[in-house]
Each structure stands twice: as structure tokens, then as C-alpha cells.
């Protein structure tokens, strides 16, 4: 008769209690795995929104541009910096920025003019994917522009409509030209949604009289590079220009990311403290109602190690079942959440710190989605079982046999 088979049978002595224990573990694990998958999906989605569509990992500006975004504060050697960044493994694309007025028929509105290198910009930004109606910019059609969704609503624009852009060119003259709306963006982020007008680089230079240089370089770091490492790499390539990470550019959002991680940790704690209490309770009951039995086992020759091993094996059996069931249940759940998502907010999405996130959360599982909750569960089981197990192991037979 092996200790393991004895442990197995002991588990099934009180079927109801064992199932309560196993189901508590399985449910806790199930919730945690689904939750971990969703939170990772949420963060990835936010990251996609912010970093992919608008911000990038790191940005380069001319010194002072961020405090005073003037047409004249340009990175003169933007092209050379871009080449150095490319050689260092970064993806980089320069943008031209200016303020102006957009007018269509009876309406006009302030506009943020953004000139992009259509081919390169697609490597650092997903804004070209965010077109809701119509199409993205095409270098072959310099008169075509793409506008943000609220601006389009204000000006009652549809693809194909005409649009006049007015501004002051770099030589001080009046800049104005007639354009045609190629596309209207879906939710991207506060500023672009309200006033963004994307032009091809050539059209921007022509309108504003800016033959060279750029206002902003958006940089994406290679997969797996940490943000501080990325910043150091960009600083090395950027010379005099000012280098900032997305965390420095959007501190509120960075804090929110951290808060989401904190909330996830708290959620883990709450669930596992609850599971831990159930476990501690059932394990204590399982040990205390068998004090006599452990005493007899010790009297006839079981050592403390064997009794400890027996109790630990009993909880190992239950844990294995709990993990199996919980992880098994989580497979279809996570699959569903990855595919169909969880409806979290209003139809038009939620805008926080100028960044709009979708109303639907999708899970984005990876190995950690399972491994982390399982590791935490094992830790909780260990913490809950150690006291009853040691208690059982150290029972003095003389007292246990008198016990009733």
C-alpha cells in the first residue's frame, strides 16, 4: 500500500468537501486565466491604439517644439537621423506638422495639418488602417487628404467632397489650396479625431513652403527591446534633437497602464485570498477530524515526514484536479474571449487621455496567461496547506489517542 494510493482514497472519503476544494481551485483559476487574458488583450489594444496609431515608442522633435509647436522649429537633418535609426534596427518616419483652417461649403474649423511620407509612415503608424470611409493617402494623388472623424462631421464631409485648407506659409504668405477628401478616419484619438487632416509629404511642403526638414520623427523599437534601451538608441542617433518615450509624452496614460496592471494584481489577490481561505478551511477540517488517526499512524511507526507527505499528497491530488479542470474550462473561455471579446462600454468607445479604446475587450493570451495564475494558485495551496500538514505531522500520538 503506497502513500499515494492512501492519499487518493483519503481525498474521496469526504467527496463533498473534496469537490468543494477542487471546484474552488478550478473556479478561481478559471476566472484568473480569463481575466489575465483579457487584461493582456486590453493592454495590447491600448498599446496598439496609442503606440501603433499615433505615438510610436519614441518620438524625436526639434528642441522647444513641444512647448511652442511652430512651423519653424524643425529637425533639419531629419533624413539623416532616419537613416541612422534604420541602420540601428529602428523603424522611423518623419512627419510635418502645422496649424490651419479647414473649410467646406458653409462650414470651417481649425485643423491640424499632418504631412506624411506615405510609404514610411505605414511602417511606424497604423493610422492608414484606421480609415473608416474611403481610402488612405496615395502619393500619386497629392490633392487627396484624409480627415479625422469629428472634423468630417463638423464640416459634413464625405469621401469625394472638396475641402479648402488655409494657413500661413513659412515665408509669411497666405497658404491656401483646394483638396479632395479621399478618406475619413475611424476613432484614432482626441486631437486627430477633432481636427486631423493628413496630407502627403509633397502636398504639405508645397502648401506650407517647407522644402526640407521635419517636425516629428516617430520611432518604433524592434520587438522585445525595452523602452529605456530604445530611448538610448534613439538618443545616440538623434544628435541635438529632443528624444522622448511615449511614457514621457503621455504620462497620464502611462499611469493608467500601471493602474491596470495594479488592478490586475489586486484582482488576482482577491480571488486567491478567497480560494486560499476555502482551502485552509477544508484542509484544517480534513486534518482535525483525523487527529486520532494520525496519532495511531504515528504510534505504530509513521514518522513525521510520512504524515506530512500524506497530507501534502492529498492536497496535491486535489490541486492537480483543480488545475486540470480550471485550465480545461479556460481553454474554450479564452478562445471565445479572443474571438468575440467582451462588451465593456458604449458603442463609440471610451476616450481616456486623448486616446480612444474600443468598447470590446478581446483576450490576447500567451503562455503566461496560464502559467502565472497556475503558479499563483500553487503558491496559495502551499501556503494554505503547510499549517495543517505540519500540525498533522507533529501530532503527539499520546494526545491524539486520548482525543475525541
Amino acid at each position: 500500500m503506497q502513500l499515494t494510493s492512501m492519499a487518493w482514497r483519503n481525498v474521496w472519503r469526504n467527496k463533498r468537501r473534496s469537490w468543494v476544494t477542487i471546484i474552488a481551485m478550478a473556479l478561481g483559476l478559471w476566472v484568473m486565466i480569463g481575466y489575465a487574458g483579457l487584461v493582456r488583450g486590453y493592454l495590447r489594444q491600448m498599446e496598439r491604439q496609442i503606440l501603433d496609431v499615433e505615438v510610436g515608442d519614441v518620438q524625436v522633435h526639434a528642441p522647444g517644439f513641444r512647448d511652442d509647436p511652430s512651423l519653424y522649429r524643425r529637425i533639419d537633418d531629419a533624413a539623416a537621423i532616419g537613416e541612422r535609426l534604420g541602420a540601428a534596427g529602428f523603424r522611423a518616419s518623419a512627419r510635418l506638422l502645422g496649424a490651419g483652417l479647414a473649410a467646406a461649403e458653409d462650414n470651417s474649423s481649425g485643423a491640424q495639418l499632418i504631412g506624411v511620407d506615405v510609404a514610411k509612415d505605414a511602417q511606424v503608424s497604423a493610422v492608414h488602417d484606421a480609415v473608416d470611409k474611403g481610402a488612405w493617402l496615395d502619393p500619386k494623388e497629392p490633392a487627396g487628404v484624409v480627415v479625422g472623424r469629428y472634423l468630417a462631421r463638423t464640416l459634413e464631409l464625405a469621401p469625394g467632397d472638396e475641402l479648402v485648407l488655409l494657413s500661413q506659409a513659412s515665408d509669411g504668405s497666405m497658404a491656401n489650396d483646394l483638396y479632395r477628401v479621399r478618406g475619413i478616419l475611424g476613432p484614432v484619438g482626441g486631437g486627430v479625431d477633432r481636427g486631423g487632416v493628413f496630407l502627403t509629404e509633397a502636398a504639405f511642403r508645397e502648401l506650407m513652403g517647407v522644402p526640407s526638414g521635419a517636425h516629428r520623427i516617430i520611432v518604433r523599437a524592434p520587438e522585445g527591446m525595452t523602452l529605456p534601451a530604445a530611448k538610448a538608441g534613439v538618443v545616440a542617433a538623434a544628435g541635438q534633437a529632443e528624444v522622448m518615450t511615449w511614457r514621457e509624452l503621455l504620462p497620464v496614460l502611462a499611469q493608467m497602464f500601471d493602474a491596470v496592471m495594479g488592478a490586475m494584481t489586486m484582482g488576482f489577490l482577491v480571488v486567491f485570498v478567497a480560494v486560499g481561505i476555502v482551502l485552509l478551511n477544508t484542509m484544517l477540517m480534513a486534518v482535525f477530524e483525523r487527529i486520532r488517526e494520525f496519532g495511531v499512524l504515528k504510534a505504530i511507526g509513521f514518522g513525521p515526514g510520512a504524515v506530512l507527505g500524506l497530507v501534502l499528497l492529498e492536497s496535491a491530488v486535489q490541486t492537480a484536479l483543480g488545475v486540470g479542470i480550471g485550465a480545461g474550462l479556460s481553454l474554450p473561455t479564452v478562445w471565445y474571449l479572443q474571438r468575440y471579446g467582451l462588451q465593456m462600454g458604449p458603442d463609440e468607445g471610451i476616450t481616456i487621455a486623448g486616446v480612444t479604446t474600443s468598447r470590446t475587450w478581446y483576450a490576447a493570451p500567451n503562455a503566461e496567461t496560464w502559467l502565472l495564475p497556475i503558479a499563483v494558485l500553487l503558491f496559495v495551496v502551499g501556503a494554505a496547506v503547510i499549517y495543517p500538514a505540519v500540525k498533522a505531522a507533529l501530532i503527539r500520538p499520546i494526545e491524539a489517542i486520548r482525543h475525541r
Partner: protein
Amino acid sequence: MNQPIAELRDVHKTYRQGAVEVHALRGLSLAIEPGEFVAISGPSGSGKSTALNLLGGLDAPTSGRVLVEGQDLGQIGRRRLAALRRDRIGFVFQAYNLVPVLTAAENAEMVLALQGVGAAERRERVARLLAEVGLAGMEDRRPDELSGGQQQRVAIARAIAAEPAVVLADEPTANVDSETAAMLLDLMGRLNAERGVTFVFSTHDPRVMERARRLVRLVDGAVESDVRR
């Protein structure tokens, strides 16, 4: 005279319950010879269980010495004491105290398993033993499928399976009717006669005392009489 197999020498045992001291044993001396069949009798509270627990190394005396096969239990460490209990002492308890999830055979072979005896040999020895205690064919029954007397037979088989120097039984017949008690006594008497197993048991049942070949009577934690027949 042989060397005693188990011996109490001028043993005192005092329990402290809060401010109250209970003198359970007051200078008890008792030597058990190999092959003896000893009943310890005496009124409730006279110290019978305490004496057996001390002989079995389950508890330590307040003063005096306890020896098993010449070894002073007070002089050996906890590990060796546990090994000595496993290898040299068999226990039978009043409430049977079998492991409920194990079959009769598994309960009986437990000590052998702890000693590392191989599975095949265990099975063979235990099958013979269970037949000897009258449980042939019941090897695979769980304790809750056995009567009280049958459970106590399994407990006796468990106690003698490893061929200990002495079997200590605290009121082994107190939970069964007198007919079953007589049968258990027959069994222990036969194991004593045929196998030479040394038994020390406590009882306050006069019919059980009659069967003993040595009757020790305790009163107030000391020997009042010690009669060999």
C-alpha cells in the same frame, strides 16, 4: 531468569492540569518477561493506560526508567524511539483504530510496509496472518464492512505482523460484547502459546482477568498485587 523484555523501574508520572497535579503513577515497578501473557487490572484512574503508554514509548515518565529489551527509552532520541516502536512494539487500541480507507490486508501489512518489506512478501505474510486470526477471505474488506470483533482481529494482526518483542493492548475488549471478548482472548492466548508473542493488556473485566497467566493489580498508581498462575 531471562532479561525482562520491557520494564518500568520506580516510575512516577505526574500530570499537571492548570494548578492541579494528578499523580497517575507513584513509584511503579514492573518487569515483563519474554513470552508472558499479562493482564493489568485495577479501578478506573489507577494508571493502567499511563503504564502501557510509558512501556510503549508514547510518553515519558516524570521520574524513573523505562526499558525495552534492555534499552533505556529516556536515553535514545526521538527518531530511534519511533523506529523502536515500529519494530519492537505492537499496539492494540480500545477503539480498534484501523485506517478506514485501507482494506483489512492493507491495514495489517502497514508496519511491514513501513519497514520496507517487499510487496510480495507482505502479501504472503499478511494472508497467512489474517487466516490465523480467523479472517480468511476478508482480506479486501474495509473496516466499515467488518464487525467490531473482526476489526479488533485485524488490529491484532497489524500489531503482531512485524513480530514485535511485546504487544501492548489497552482495554482491547472494552468495546465488544463478552462473547466476542472471550474469542479475542482465545486468539491472543493462542498467539501467545503457539508463536510466543508477549502480550500485556489492561482490563477491568473480571472474566478477562481470569484468562491471564499473570495478573497485576494497580491501585493509585502502584502495584497492589502481582500474581503468576
